[in-house]
């Protein structure tokens, strides 16, 4: 392969994987922006979404789009239960809420382990084959993922920017007390935002299930990625999550292809520390004052 082709393929690879990271990060940053919760369990919802999809599509042979929908809905329900039982009780207490989210992550991961066992399970491929343009390869399976991610982000944008609900959410993110004073039903917005964040994670998991494989342990990696991306993009900023997701995807792709995979990992954490040092609010975040 010529150097140009490799370079181009690397860019394409980076963007493809960046789309999934973006989905994970958006859900994570939304939950933080609106509810001020750093949710260590975010990746576990990704895992549950992947399992639900694997069960509907793989075991029961439900058609693809319907499986996606069912996976999202069932995971969202789990998320709602978690929010009502646990997270809602920690509003105003960020650090304890974060510790509680670690506990929730442990419970979810190991409950999945007990129910479904440790062996990874594979999901039958949704599509197969590749399309190639001028030497650059796009596996169809990943193209499906990209399309799904773009649709989701598009819908989300419409929701946030152009609906009343979206406006209410943005108001709560800015200042919950004032939003309450303005008559916005903050008590409804919180669980709604959480469920929306969980749904995005579940969608990411379901889309990736046929591409990778599904096991109770797949949740930790997306959580870590989401952290890294959201810190870089700005905690609470959705555009930041998009930019951060794509950026991390590219960094990972370039470092993985041209340096070593191990260095790629370390590099990402270093970038996190660098951003925190030089521009703590992230690339696109608002400057936060200490509480």
């Amino acid at each position: 392969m010529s150097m140009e082709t490799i370079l181009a393929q690397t860019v394409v690879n980076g963007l493809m994987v960046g789309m999934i990271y973006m989905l994970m990060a958006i859900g994570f940053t939304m939950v933080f922006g609106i509810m001020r919760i750093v949710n260590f369990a975010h990746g576990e919802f990704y895992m549950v979404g992947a399992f639900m999809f694997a069960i509907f599509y793989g075991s029961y042979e439900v058609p693809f789009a319907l499986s996606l929908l069912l996976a999202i809905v069932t995971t969202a329900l789990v998320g709602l239960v978690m929010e009502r039982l646990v997270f809602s009780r920690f509003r105003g207490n960020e650090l304890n809420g974060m510790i509680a989210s670690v506990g929730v992550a442990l419970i979810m991961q190991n409950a999945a382990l007990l129910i479904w066992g440790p062996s990874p399970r594979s999901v039958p491929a949704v599509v197969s084959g590749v399309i190639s343009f001028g030497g650059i390869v796009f596996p169809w399976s990943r193209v499906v993922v990209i399309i799904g991610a773009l649709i989701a982000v598009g819908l989300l944008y419409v929701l946030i920017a152009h609906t009343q609900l979206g406006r209410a959410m943005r108001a709560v993110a800015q200042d919950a007390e004032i939003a309450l004073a303005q008559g916005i039903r903050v008590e409804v917005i919180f669980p709604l935002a959480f469920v929306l964040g969980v749904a995005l994670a579940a969608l990411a998991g379901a889309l990736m299930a046929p591409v990778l494989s599904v096991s109770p342990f797949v949740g930790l990696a997306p959580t870590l990625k989401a952290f890294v991306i959201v810190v870089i993009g700005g905690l609470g900023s959705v555009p930041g999550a998009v930019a951060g997701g794509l950026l991390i995807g590219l960094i990972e792709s370039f470092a993985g292809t041209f340096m070593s995979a191990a260095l790629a990992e370390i590099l990402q954490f270093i970038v996190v520390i660098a951003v925190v040092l030089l521009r703590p609010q992230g690339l696109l975040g608002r400057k936060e004052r200490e509480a």
Partner: protein
Amino acid sequence: MLRFAVLAVAVLATGSASAETLTIGINATLSGAGAVFGEGMALAATNFADEVNAKGGLKIGGKSYTIELKKYDDRYRAQDAVTAMERLILEDKVKYVVGPMGSASTLATQARTNGDQILTLTMAFTPKALSPQLPFSFRPAITTAEFTGPQLAWLGKTLALKRVRALAPNDETGQSVAASQKEAYAAIGVNLEVDFFERERVDFIPILTRALAQTDALEIGGNSPTTAGLLVKQARELGYKGPIFVTGGDVTAELVKVAGKQAAEGVYVHLPIDISKPETAGYIKAFEAKFKQPANGHNLFIYSGLQMLTAAMQKAGTVDDTAKVAKELQGLANFPTVLGTAGWTGDKRYGIDHQIDVPFYVGQIKDGVVAKVATCSVTACN
């Protein structure tokens, strides 16, 4: 309850009293990612114990021993393996242990077990698991150090290889497998380039893009079954049509599931088991009927190890003098096990003959199942 019933039957059957218990410990990974191997080991031991006890127990030195098992989970962490081993030695007072499973766990516990003369049947792939300073450590599993050389020599003869690229996880298995591979490939005149990646990685497109750009073959031995499957799948997605080798543990079933039949077609694998052998096929059939689970490589290795261990106990006439048992065990040769005829080897590489010597095979995946294409011993493949 069943154990007591068996014990009672044993007592009645032998007439005279002398019904004793031999407690064997199991120190393996029973939870988490490595559980499928640890479970295989534990089930093999359970199977063995059940069969022996059903026949009235182990007859050694005029006494009849019922085998009892104590099972502890090391959670694939060296520190937990140490604590589990302490418990087995101090609280349960065992002298024979099946395990540990992982290399780190074995390294962390070997000084202790050998110091206290506890005989271990370890499954760790690290070459440091065996040495003349570790007279009580035995390994009833064929590792990469044993099979990589002969397998690759055969592959090198069959296909023309100049450059080969390997992808291995950055953990204990991957690192030691990569070391064996480098050595073996060098022996056939290939300079192997190894790329390490973190164990949890699932997206290999970037590193595959780089690796496949300039290579004659892709080597992915040392990866877990799922990772191997993902690597094969993604390599084929990137348009790679060359040969793929899995010169590592037994991964075929999962690999085919994850990668799909088409992508997996033609992949060369290491095959520890020959199901055309009557003793192997018979064991697998009986095991699967009884436990309703597939029997994996770890299972058969441990079962064979236990077959040899108990024979050694009988020859030594004792269960308490582990030094005597170890000597008898090492002396076994041409011993019939479920894997075929077994002996011990390893003096050249490790300084001590505590490495099991059983035949193994080169396999190639054809239409979703693996077909044997060559039979091997530690010296060569044909």
